[in-house]
């Protein structure tokens, strides 16, 4: 089902845009290569965007699912625990200090994501790693990294003219080359997460129960957080800070598919990929031929849903 949704949204993503192509034209363009105008549109513009949206959506949604499971907190996500902000800060810092080295941006984003997750993890570990502490530490780290991003932006206004789109999140200038290191990391991250689905579920039973079932709780939590950071960092490195995907997609999947990771994780990958692809179609067709940033569209859809979740959670508490 979700696979069909993903394929359909991918096809729609390649067809739709300022120049509209029919599915038939897309296939003939794919067959003819870059020699025809349609072929150039498909290979140089549409395909990178669709692949970029799919990778970013899949990575952020799975990262969110892992973080929610590991922290046992439905309101956690790569955005909430500071992973996105950390990746963003290091990307901005790198492009300010080494403007020539655009190839280093993905590496910088990974370092930032790891730095954020490690800081959160170490703070939490010192306080015996309670779930609340992890989220609070994440919120603090997130603010700090965002302040850092703003500082760099103010100190280097010229070199960072493109940064506003980065902070909103968007994949307007994406090329297949820019996706190169990121897609490998996302593929490895998804595979690693799938292999650890059982551990993830045991961990979400709570630390004590997980321990007495023979799980190495601290190591498992650490490895899963590293995977989540790698996934989110890879996505941020080419798509900027896309909020809410990592929060709402795991929620929808949890409600519809259930919370068993062996079903939920693949569902998050597929739905996350479809969701961002569809949002990107909206971003470039809504005010066509002008484009708005992908991050804006995700926020328009994501924020009302987030508020709905907050209200719903409060209602749930009263019922319990």
């Amino acid at each position, binding site marked *: 089902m979700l696979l069909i949704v993903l394929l359909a949204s991918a096809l729609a993503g390649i067809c739709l845009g300022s120049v509209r192509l029919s599915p038939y034209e897309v296939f003939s363009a794919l067959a003819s290569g870059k020699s025809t105008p349609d072929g150039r549109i498909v290979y140089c513009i549409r395909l990178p965007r669709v692949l970029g949206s799919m990778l970013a959506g899949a990575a952020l949604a799975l990262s969110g699912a892992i973080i929610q499971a590991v922290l046992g907190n439905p309101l956690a996500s790569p955005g909430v625990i500071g992973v996105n902000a950390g990746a963003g800060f290091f990307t901005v810092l790198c492009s300010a200090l080494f403007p020539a080295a655009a190839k280093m941006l993905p590496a910088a984003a990974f370092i930032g994501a790891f730095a954020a997750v490690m800081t959160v993890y170490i703070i939490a570990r010192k306080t015996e790693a309670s779930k609340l502490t992890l989220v609070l530490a994440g919120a603090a780290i997130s603010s700090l990294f965002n302040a850092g991003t703003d500082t760099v932006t103010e100190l280097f206004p010229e070199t960072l003219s493109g940064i506003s789109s980065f902070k909103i999140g968007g994949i307007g200038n994406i090329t297949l080359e820019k996706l190169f290191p990121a897609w490998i990391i996302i593929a490895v991250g998804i595979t690693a997460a799938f292999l650890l689905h059982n551990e993830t579920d045991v961990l979400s039973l709570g630390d004590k129960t997980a321990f007495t079932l023979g799980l190495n709780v601290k190591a498992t939590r650490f490895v899963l957080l590293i995977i989540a950071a790698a996934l989110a960092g890879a996505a941020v490195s080419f798509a900027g800070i896309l909020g809410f995907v990592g929060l709402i997609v795991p929620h929808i999947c949890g409600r519809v598919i*259930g919370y068993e990771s062996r079903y939920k994780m693949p569902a998050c990958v597929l739905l996350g990929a479809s969701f961002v692809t569809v949002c990107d179609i909206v971003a470039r067709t809504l005010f066509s031929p002008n484009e708005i940033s992908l991050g804006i569209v995700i926020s328009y859809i994501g924020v009302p849903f987030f508020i709905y979740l907050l209200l719903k959670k409060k209602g749930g508490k009263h019922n319990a």
Partner: protein
Amino acid sequence: MLELRNLCGGYGGKDILEDISISFESGSITSVIGANGCGKSTLLQMCCGLLKPSRGQVLIDGKDISEMKHIELAQKISYMEQVHNSGSITVRALASHGRFPYLGYPRRFTAQDKKIVDEALESAGVSDIADRKVSELSGGQRQRAYIAMTLAQDTDIVLLDEPSTYLDISSQFELTDIVYAMKKRGKTVITVLHDLNMALSNSDMTAVMKNGRLLGVLPPKEAAESGLIRQALGVEAVLDEKTGQYLLFKGENHEKSYN
């Protein structure tokens, strides 16, 4: 068999338990009783390795648990914690996690694992609700779902921390039946119980604690008659021979009513 030797320890470098030595026989039910904060839960958590003793040893069949592999420990001793952290997974999925210590990589369930899970669901009386989500169940059903997980873990030693807290009275009796069935299969069951009457009427032995020390380990009737219960909890317990239940009195009231 589980044996504690001169066990001391607690949280954050501060010892709660002081010099506890006790052995729990196979095929017996032992209730740990004592006032709140006397170290009952600490004791259980130390038995299964959740807390490390500052001094002394925990031995399973003569082997120190600090020398055992974590996964090996999980195959020998299970622990049902008081607060349940269940997400919206099904009862069957929860019970299946009980097989986690036995799954090698790549974590595949064998036919044998599935059979054990089915039996555990059956014994815990949750076969009919196996496909429902744990979060949608009543307190009693949820507790039985967790018991199914503990049964599926199929360890020789079973630790139950306040298993009856959220149960209504009929669910409490069902729980008692399940615990007796574990005993029959030769398991060592150790429970911490709030309900003194339930602890006294359904245990082979009572381990009576006060302020982190073990006052004594006696069969319930003797614990009541020797005044150990009074010493620990400030109440008298008198066996009603007809029902096998205990009548509980606050110390001085008891004196008055019998004088």
